[in-house]
């Protein structure tokens, strides 16, 4: 607890200094709204229900995009991890696609899938897919051959080895991959919403910029940070029971 409080020292000092600087007219409050102003803006956005609507829209995009991306990445990673033939066949193509910066897909997705939800979800899923695919594949390749031999000596079939040795051995890396995938999901939802949306926190960013309301932009940024952190913490909490056996318990989120 005390350690956590230590981390708050700098933000609190910075916030107070900011507040004071604006009060004494050292910096212009309209472009650099102080914490008190941000709080007022946030409260009014919550009162009107706008913030909830935008946050919900963003979260559902991240959720759906992440879900599809994670599922595809995991399944394909498992396939290429388990079968050398599948790896030789598929991995080069996946790696080639990975070389394309994901944002570069935006125009073609819009042409193919339209300007609305589908192209956004596709972009997020694509961004989420690669780290999870790579994580799953390399985790399967890194499974200790010696443990697999234990499974064989004690009579496990190929499927049994996969289920009882490979899968638990892969879990920690896979979960780490899910976490980095989720982080990218938040990155790409911003990109997706910046390219044109009528709701979502990304839309709020654009709206604030167009209206010259720095406080709205900053509130949206903070909410992004909070939701990202919260989702990650949730993922960690849900998966923690699976990793109790690990020697190195993740010290921090």
């Amino acid at each position, binding site marked *: 607890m005390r350690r956590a409080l230590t981390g708050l020292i700098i933000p609190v000092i910075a916030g107070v200094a900011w507040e004071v600087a604006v009060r004494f007219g050292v910096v212009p409050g309209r472009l650099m709204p102080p914490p008190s102003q941000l709080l007022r803006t946030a409260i009014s956005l919550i009162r009107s229900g706008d913030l909830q609507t935008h946050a919900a829209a963003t979260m559902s995009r991240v959720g759906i995009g992440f879900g599809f991306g994670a599922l595809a990445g995991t399944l394909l990673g498992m396939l290429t991890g388990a079968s050398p033939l599948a790896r030789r066949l598929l991995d080069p193509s996946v790696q080639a696609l990975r070389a394309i910066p994901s944002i570069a897909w935006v125009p073609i997705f819009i042409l193919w899938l339209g300007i609305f939800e589908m192209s956004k979800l596709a972009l997020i899923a694509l961004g989420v897919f690669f780290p999870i695919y790579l994580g799953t594949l390399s985790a399967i390749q890194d499974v200790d051959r*010696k*443990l697999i*031999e*234990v499974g*064989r*000596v*004690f*009579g496990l079939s190929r499927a049994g080895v996969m289920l009882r*040795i490979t899968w*638990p*051995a892969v*879990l920690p890396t896979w979960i780490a991959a899910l976490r980095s995938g989720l982080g990218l999901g938040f990155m790409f939802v911003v990109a997706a919403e910046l390219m044109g949306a009528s709701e979502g926190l990304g839309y709020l960013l654009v709206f604030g910029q167009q209206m010259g309301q720095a406080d709205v932009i900053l509130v949206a940024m903070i909410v992004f940070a909070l939701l990202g952190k919260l989702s990650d913490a949730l993922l960690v909490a849900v998966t923690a029971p699976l990793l*109790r*056996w*690990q*020697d190195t318990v993740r010290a921090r989120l």
Partner: protein
Amino acid sequence: MTTLAIEGLSKTYADGTEALRDMHLFAHSGEIVALLGGSGCGKTTLLRLAAGLDEPSAGSIAIDGKAVTGTHAAISAVFQEPRLLPWLSVERNIGFGGRRIANGERRRRIDDLLQRTGLAGYGDRWPKDLSGGQQQRVAMARALIGRPGILLLDEPFSALDAFTRSSLHELVLALWQDLRPTILLVTHDVDEAVFLADRVIVMRPRPGRVHETMTITLARPRNKLAAEHDITRRNVLRAIDRSLAGDRISATGGGAISPWV
């Protein structure tokens, strides 16, 4: 009651290393056979072939007279490293070796083995919380819970300190007295071979093959400090010396170094 017959077993790895050449071995039911030798004499290769983890290039393995290929329910193993599954608790690791046993009976055997290996109360710990010696005891329990006819021991004591090793020797013998598995023990420790085995097979390297077989007639329980133990030990050392004599001349020639140390 399980016998192990190995006939003409050879193994040449894909890279051309001839790890084992024309190995013949018959282990009687309940016998402890020690394979003694340095690196590259094919003893671990032999064990891997017997366990069904590798395919022989030639020759055959038979259990109770029936030829087998691949892994076999009657064969169990303890490796040089404990190789416990880190995501299973100690008791579930032990239970892993006896998945075919009915639940109640398995539970009973787990408790019994925990007791006998001195790990009572450690059942719900994680492997990482155990010392190296304790982990190897769990591995031993896992290998024996299924009452295997044949137990393969691949230098399971070599990574342990002298005290822990000694107590594990006692444990192996105690469990062997009860369950009487046929044991194939790979080791490079002369004392260990003399203390545990009914028969010591001295092997020589490159390619791995049998050099000399010696029967150990010392009565059990054995005493490492007894004079007879010392005499037998010296006889085995002499056999090892003879096995190296042929290699001395070519020792500077630098043969291929086997990765199966």
